[in-house]
Every structure is written in C-alpha cells, then in structure tokens.
C-alpha cells in the first residue's frame, strides 16, 4: 500500500469528556427538558460485532468491532471508521455523537455515526486487512446505505479500505453505489484532485476570525504545529493570503524564522522526505531547543494541528496569539480555554475548524448520487459556503449572547437538532 495507514487520517476527536461537557453546557444554556435531552443524547443504535477473519496462516482470528448510529433525524448518519488497537464502544458512541453535532452545526442533511475495529492494521497483511474490511461491511448490511448510514476514512483506515467497503456493498446489492463510502479516490467517485477541503475550511475560519478581531491577514504572523496534509496545505493557503508563517513543527521538532518561512521549500521538503527533519540545513531557519516554545512565540495566529492538550494551564499565560485555530482535536485544555476567552483571545473550536473535511465528504456524496461531477472551483466555493455559514451563525450567537465561540457552536447545533426532533415526533 502506498499510503501509510497510521498517518493517512490521523485525526478524530479524542477526549470524550469534553464532547459531552460541551453538549451539557449547551443543553443547560437552552434550558432543554430531560425528555428533550434524552431524545438528543442517546444513540439510536449501537452494535458490538465479532468479525471472524481467515488469516494468511489458515487460522481464524476473531476481531471485535463496534458501530454506533447516533442520529438519523436530519438525514442519513455519517461517520468515520477506525482500525486501531485501543477502541471500545464508549469511544465510538462519543464520536458518533460528535459527528451528529458537527453536521447540525454545518446545516448539512446528515446525522452522525461512527465505527471501529479493534485491530493493529500495521500487523496485518494486505490480504488480511482486505478480508477484515469486507467482513466488517458484511455485518453492517442493511444499516450502511446511501440514505441511512455512510462511512468515511479515519484513524487506521484509508482510501484503499474505503474502496473495498464500496466494492463489498456494490457486489452484494448488484448496484454500483459509490455514495455509501466517502473519502474515495478520484477514480472511484472521490473528489477531484487538487481540492483540499480540510485546509480550505481552516483557512476560511481564520480569515473570518481575523475579520472579527480586526486583524489583517496580510502580514499576520502564524505558527503551525503539525505539518501533515492539512497543516501543509493550510500554510500554503495562508501564505497565499499574505500571512507570514514564522514557525512550523512536526514530530522531529519546531522550526522558526522570524522573517517568515519559505512555505514552498518547506512543503517540498516534507513531500520528498515525509518529515521536516534536516530542514535547518537547507532553509534559513533555526530549530527550537524545546518544540513547545512554538506556542509562546510572538505571533498573531496559532494553529495547533497535531495532538490534543498542547495549550494547558501550564503554558497558557505565555501564549501571545490573538487567534487560536484548533485543527487538532482538543489541543486546548478546558482550563486554558477559559483563560484565553477571559483575556479576549478568539479560539476557533475544533468542531468548526475541522468543518472543511466533512463538507468535502458531503459534496462527494451529492456527486455520487447524481453521477455528475463538478469542477474543482465549484467544490471549493461550496466548501467555503458551508463552513462560512456555520462560522457566521455560530459567531452571531457568540457575539449576541456574549459567550465563547465553542459554546455558541454547541448551542447552534443542539438548537437545530432539537427543532427537527420536535418536527419528526415519535413514531410509535
């Protein structure tokens, strides 16, 4: 496989406590009744599955898998599939819940679901991985459908696995049905290449945040932690918008040039070697002794795009940025979040900052249903429309009610869900 499984989609929301805490805060803010809370909170369906798979040595190994459909009230549920050793049903339920709220926040006609297989994909052969993937979908026949539940790639899964899932479904139903799985390669109904919805979404959020903070993007100083696909494409977009990227980092370290980093050269290095290691010998910049110093640089915009809990009570007082864009999930601890809000730093919450990716999935689904494919420009425009509307609506609530953007986003999502739950009523 050309694509590394562990880094293909290395992101999905992590600390579950926060997901529920945000909902509870929004529900309390809106004064929902216990009945409404129960209708919104409980998952519609949760499955524990066993997947017997024939291994290359002829033995049969039984894998455990989980699948949760949290809500289909606003439309078919959509969510990622994880293949990794440390998963359980509780995690999957929280992720499904999160997906429901993100789709409602963005006003997309989707509910939320999530799935996971307990396995170490790096320890499986390609054949074993394929049989495992197909077995997973076979167990979900009747649930996974273009109008009921849709799967996307997440931690430990990639385009190849999405293709196997799509093939299993299509063969089973004797119908070519690409809309059942999203994040496919262009050749099988995926988005046209050259569009980077995730990075586009972050870029737009940052632009809108700048407008709100009366900060000019042109000339603004940016530090980005994490230089994977999203971090790199974001650096390119921000650079094109006139911003000065002064620091980038990956697992090998953090690299700084106060006068601005040549984004093209750094991207070329990353694309050639996969890591930023050795960058300091090629480009005019210095490697920081402690990569965590990146968070304390004199920048306007800080983009944590790597792992969770990077800005905490310990270092928040030394953060100088006016805008923090949460590209990673939960990079800001709740305590640090409060302090940032109190002193007027705008934190763009992960659920909004990461809206570009799922917007891209939605547009892939639409195109698969029509069998008609749009040019890159119209996809970019639609991604920006979807993310922009979500951002504007959430910001409006934040400003009018004087509450943090994170709470405003949750309030907006819960409000939309509650309205639709009321409209549809109870079946029985």
């Amino acid at each position, binding site marked *: 496989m050309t694509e590394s499984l562990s880094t293909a989609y290395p992101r999905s929301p992590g600390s579950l406590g926060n997901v529920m805490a945000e909902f509870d805060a929004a529900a309390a803010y809106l004064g929902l009744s216990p009945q409404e809370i129960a209708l919104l909170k409980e998952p519609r369906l949760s499955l524990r599955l066993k997947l017997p798979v024939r291994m290359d040595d002829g033995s049969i190994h039984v894998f455990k898998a989980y699948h949760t459909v949290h809500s289909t009230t606003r439309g078919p549920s959509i969510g990622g599939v994880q293949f990794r050793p440390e998963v359980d049903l509780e995690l999957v339920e929280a992720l499904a819940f999160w997906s429901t709220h993100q789709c409602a926040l963005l006003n997309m006609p989707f509910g939320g679901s999530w799935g996971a297989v307990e396995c170490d994909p790096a320890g499986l052969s390609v054949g074993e991985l394929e049989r495992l993937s197909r077995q997973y979908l076979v167990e979900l026949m009747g649930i996974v459908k273009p109008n009921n539940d849709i799967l996307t790639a997440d931690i430990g899964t990639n385009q190849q696995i999405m293709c196997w899932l799509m093939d299993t479904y299509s063969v089973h139903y004797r119908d070519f049905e690409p809309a059942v799985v999203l994040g496919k390669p262009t050749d099988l109904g995926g988005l046209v290449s050259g569009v980077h919805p995730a990075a586009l979404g972050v870029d737009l959020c940052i632009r809108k945040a700048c407008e709100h903070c009366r900060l000019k993007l042109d000339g603004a100083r940016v530090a980005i932690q994490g230089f994977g696909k999203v971090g790199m494409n974001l650096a390119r977009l921000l650079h094109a918008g006139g911003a000065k990227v002064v620091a980038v980092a990956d697992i090998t370290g953090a690299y700084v040039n106060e006068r601005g980093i040549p984004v093209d050269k750094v991207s070329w290095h990353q694309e050639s070697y996969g890591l930023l290691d050795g960058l300091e010998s090629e480009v005019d910049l210095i490697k920081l002794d402690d990569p965590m110093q990146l968070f304390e640089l004199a920048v306007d915009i800080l983009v944590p795009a790597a792992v969770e809990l990077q800005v905490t009570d310990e270092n928040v007082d030394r953060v100088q940025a006016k805008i923090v864009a949460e590209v990673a999930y939960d990079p800001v601890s709740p305590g640090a979040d409060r302090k940032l809000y109190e002193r007027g730093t705008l934190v763009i919450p992960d659920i909004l900052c990461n809206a570009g990716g799922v917007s891209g999935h939605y547009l892939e689904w*639409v195109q698969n249903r029509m069998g008609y494919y749009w040019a890159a420009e119209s996809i970019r425009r639609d991604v920006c429309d979807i993310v922009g509307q979500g951002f504007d609506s959430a910001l409006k609530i934040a400003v009018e009610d004087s509450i943090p953007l994170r709470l405003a986003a949750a309030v907006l999502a819960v409000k939309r869900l509650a309205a639709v739950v009321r*409209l549809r009523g109870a079946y029985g």
Partner: protein
Amino acid sequence: MPVPPGTFGSTAQPPSAFENAMRQFDAAAKILNLTPNQIAVIKQPRRVTEVKLPVRMDDGRIEIFTAYRVQHNVARGPAKGGVRFHPEVTLDEVKALAFWMTYKCAVVNIPFGGGKGGVVCDPSKLSEAELERLARRYFAEMIDLFGPDRDVPAPDVGTNPQIMSWFLDAYASHKRDFLPAVVTGKPIDLGGSQGRVEATAQGIVYTIRQAATHLGLNLRGCTVAIEGFGNVGSNAAKLLEREGCRIVAVSDVSGAYHDEAGIDVSAALARVKTHGVLAGLERATKASLLSDPMELLELDVDILVPAALENRITGENAGRVRARLVAEGANGPLTTEADRILAEKGVFVIPDILCNAGGVTVSYLEWVQNKVGYYWKNERIQEDLSRMMEEAFRAILETSLQYGVDMRVAAFVVAIQRVTRASEMRGLYA
C-alpha cells in the same frame, strides 16, 4: 369508454372552478380531435384508494376516519398533489383535484402526474397528538402507494409542513431509509426548499411580467388591485410593489381598501401579522374602506389579481371590469360567462392553471434537491422558477395564437398534448 356523468363533482351545486375547468378541457380535447378512447384514458383517474383509519383519541376512544388517495395520471412521472384534511372532503372532490394536478403539472412541464388525497376530519377539533396519529396512520395505511418515484404528497387545505414532517418520519422509519423526496412542502430544517412560502405569488409575478411584455405594458408604474390578502395575495402585493407597480387596492374578509396614491403594503403586511386581518387599515394609513368590497374588481387599474375565492367575476359584473390584465391567483375566480365577456372586451386573462402553478413548480425543485441531497440558494430557485413559468407562458401564448383560442383553452391544449404524447409513447402494459 365514455366518462359517466357526475364522475367529477356534484351537478347539484352551482358550477365549481373544477366544472368550469372541465368545460375548458372538453373544448381543448375537441380542438385536438381526440377520440373518445383517448379522452377516457387521460380523463379518468388511474387508481382510487379509499381506506378507513382507526385512530386512538386522547380519551381512549377509537374513531374511524375515511381517507382517500387518488392517482389520476402517472404517465409523465410520479403522481403529485396535496393531502387535504377537511370535514367536507368527498371522493368526487379528491378525484377532481387529482385531475386538475395532472394538467397543472403538464402546463409547467414538470415530470409529474397528478394526485390528490384527503381525510374527512376537522383538524381544528383534534389535539396535536391525535392529529399526529391520524397523519401517521394515513401514511402507513397507504405506504406502498407513496414513494419518491411513485406518488409525492404535499400540504393542502388543513395540512401543513408539520404534517409533512410526520409523513416523512413515518416513511423513513418504515423503510429504514431517509427519503425526504417522498413528500414536499417540508420545513427548511427537514429538506424543504428556499422560496417555497412565496412560490405561488412569485409565479404569478413571473407570468404577469410575460403578459405585460406581450401587451406592451411597462410594469413600472402599473396600477394593481389585489383581491385576497392570504399567503398568495399578500406576497403578490409585496412582490409586485418590488416590480415598481402601484398597489391601489387590497382586500380580505374584513373589506376592501383603496388608495389611488398606493397602499402602504408593508403597513398592510404588519397589520395582518399582528391582527390577523386588514381591519383598521383605513385608520392606520391613508387608505379608504370601500363601501362594497366587490367594487375592488371594477376599479380603473391596469392589473387585477383575484387571489381569494372562486366565481368572483361573473356574467353580472364582468362588463364593469376595467383592468387590461387579469391574473388568476385563486382557482376559478372567473366564470365561463365572465371569461367570454372579458375576451370580447379584449382583457387579457392569465388562467389559474398557469398563473398559480408556481407552488407546484417549487415543490418539484424541492423534490429534485431531496433526490440529489444538495440544496440551492433562493437565487437559484428563482432562476428555475422564472424560466419554467416563462417557458410555460410562451408555449401557451403561441398555442393560443395558433388555434385562435383564449389562454385558458390553450393551456389545456398544451397540457393535453403533453400528457397524451407520454401516455401513447408508453403504450399499454398488457
């Protein structure tokens, strides 16, 4: 096979909008030299379903409601038409309205046949929970009739977007698939379309634009009288004012209000929003209350929009109509006799089946959006709605000139040709 007398509507009552329409249909069929067999195929309903709906009432009693769904014609596509909740629903009425939908859809050339449904009930006497159980039972009882490619209901008298949401939910739960295209007229949050609320009024305005061009009228500065200030009349007033027209008279059940300098439309809208009716408009603005509301129809205006009830312009008052253009916002506001008199006077009439088809056209656009799962902004909706209304208007105007018939008969000629072509190309199944 000849159609038995009384198939549509009772003959004991004064001519209804529908009976008038039937006469126009027959006139059009004659122009097209259709054979009795051809007429029978496209005139009679294809499938009539009557069911009894047992519903548990809040007090524990079970009440049985009579309900209908008629699929009149499905040659051009799935049946399309509203569901009516009203105490006076009859099967004849439902059949008649389903017939009407077949031709309305064909007039604006949307890929639908015609259908209609009804439940004999008084929704104002049902609790919310009873209404929900009744709506779900109605849908469940006929679940195999409905489907995005079979039969697509919509709101009508006594039903609303909330009831459409229950229909959607009953269908989605039963099929285990989210298929919002099974019903239209939904709230925006559940797959409804932008532009739906104003759709009928907007369609009227688009046809008025076309007619004005045809007559050499400049809409800017035209005077307009509008009868009826419900959803259609009030939005038509707002939209026509935006076109540059001067709205000199409006009316509702409380009376007719006249101001030659122009009614303050936003004040009238605000009044209806707070008071429910226009009553008192003569005190709040410079408008005067007409002593007889029927005078509104006889005002010296360029454009008259009857958007209230049927049979308002008759052989009695048609001679006194001074408008150059009459746009039928309501169904059947002109009697056949009035039609003849206005034609002699050279008044141009935009017939109801074309004029108020904006609603079903936006329903169609809602259905398309649901099928694709992609939602348009209002500008895009208006692009399609205006184009479709204009194309329909032009086709009918051409036909009217070609056959030397009025716009109403021409609308039926166009629609019958479309339905007959589809029907005959498809042939008989067995």
